[in-house]
């Protein structure tokens, strides 16, 4: 297949030419996935930490539910969100179908379970270390949970990264609720799907390489941040 070799060349050309369309698509992908992951963290961190720290009835049910939701197919999430926000759906009045907002919502639903489940794991370990000290200080849960989240902040970066990875690589949900509209909701992954369906395999793969590069640099940045935090014994 000559597609492979031409993809690398194409990817390189796309990048150095600062193609306006490509930059727009990358920008939208980053914007949607970053907002989704920030909101998912705001929901998922306290949720995961609460399950790790608190003992309440139904805790196991929530736990099992979260783990099951982690495997939720994006298409199903996309369909659910579509049915909710379609003009014929219960939230149709919001008028957000085929918008970046719709894609953000779908991605949040996809990644909150991941963020919460991984947070739970991390916080449980940290809590084991801090538990006696915190109980000695008679701290209420409203202080314990934020303190644990803050002290796990650098470890939680990897959780955010896992969520971000799923969000930015996801196509099934965003193509349904976003509609892959040019200059409005076209992202990296939906472009790749589109170019594949047009038979432009080399271009599709080149876009994939750009996505990989993007993902690599974000991972490297987080890795560096964690390394410096380790140096300060904060991680």
């Amino acid at each position, binding site marked *: 297949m000559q597609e492979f070799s031409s993809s690398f060349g194409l990817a390189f050309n796309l990048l150095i030419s600062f193609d306006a369309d490509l930059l727009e698509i990358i920008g939208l992908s980053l914007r949607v996935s970053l907002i989704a992951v920030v909101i998912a963290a705001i929901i998922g961190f306290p949720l995961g930490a609460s399950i790790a720290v608190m003992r309440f009835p139904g805790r196991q049910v929530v736990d099992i539910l979260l783990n099951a939701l982690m495997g939720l197919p994006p298409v199903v999430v996309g369909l659910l969100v579509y049915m909710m926000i379609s003009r*014929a759906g219960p939230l149709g009045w919001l008028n957000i179908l085929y918008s970046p907002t719709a894609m953000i919502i779908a991605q949040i639903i996809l990644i909150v379970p991941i963020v919460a489940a991984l947070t739970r794991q991390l916080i449980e370990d940290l809590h084991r270390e801090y538990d006696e000290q915190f109980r000695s200080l008679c701290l209420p849960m409203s202080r314990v949970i934020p303190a644990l989240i803050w002290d796990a902040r650098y470890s939680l970066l990897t959780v955010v990264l896992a969520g971000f990875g799923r969000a930015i690589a996801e196509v099934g949900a965003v193509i349904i609720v976003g509609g892959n509209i040019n200059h409005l909701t076209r992202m990296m992954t939906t472009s790749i799907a589109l170019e594949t369906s047009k038979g432009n*395999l080399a271009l599709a793969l080149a876009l994939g390489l750009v996505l990989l590069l993007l993902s690599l640099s974000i991972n490297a940045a987080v890795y560096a941040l964690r390394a410096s935090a380790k140096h300060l014994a904060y991680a």
Partner: protein
Amino acid sequence: MLKHTFLMIFLLLMTDSGIAGKSLILQSTTSTANSGLYDYLLPLFEKDTRVKVNVVAVGTGQAIKNAQNCDGDVLLVHAKAAEEKFIAEGYGVERFDVMYNDFIFVGPPGDPANIRNLRQAVGGLKKIAESESIFLSRGDNSGTHKKELSLWKYAGLDPVVASGTWYRETGSGMGATLNVAVEMNAYAMTDRGTWISFGNRQDFEILLSGDKDLFNQYGVMMVNPERCDKMNMQSAKTFIDWILSDKGQGLIANYQLQGQQLFFPNAK
């Protein structure tokens, strides 16, 4: 400090560019979008009318379904029977012919079912069925799929009983189906526009075309504003008037890819 940095980035990301001015959602088929027709037409339309068109390109079946849910203002698809049903059930206002092209049969140059010199689509299908040559169907209730099924019916054959053997339904878009067909050395039916703009043809050829049964009519219609009160009726009317106008029709005729005309305007 870290917190502030995050906050700044977040605020920057939140600022939505938004859609300024009038816009409409066009529910359409992948064939028209992938051929590049809209990339050619819509900037000219937007320049003329200052109305922004957002194209959602899906299979005809899904496009009609979305329009039934009021998730769109204008429908431009190619499945006349389904479109007329859409109007009759009150989902749309009035249907207009816009343009046509034709369906073609593509396949490997070896042509195992030997359909190359046939004039009639029905004959081709019979030969494919007889020789049990692999045939790739969209299987997704799209306009192309509906057309294909009607041809099988016309030929007095039911390929679905052979589903999974020589008759294979991808359940995907035209491009995805063509990608699979090329890999499997199989026959497929596609619209000419998609085929000409398709980038992964490899050594595949058009083996059968020109039958009047392979006529592919595109229709345009507005979603019923009485059912969908939030729709952009004014923009939708502007778009339909424009595409049916002499100017719009002329531009459709002008659009060429690789030296070939893809769509033929036929508004009355």
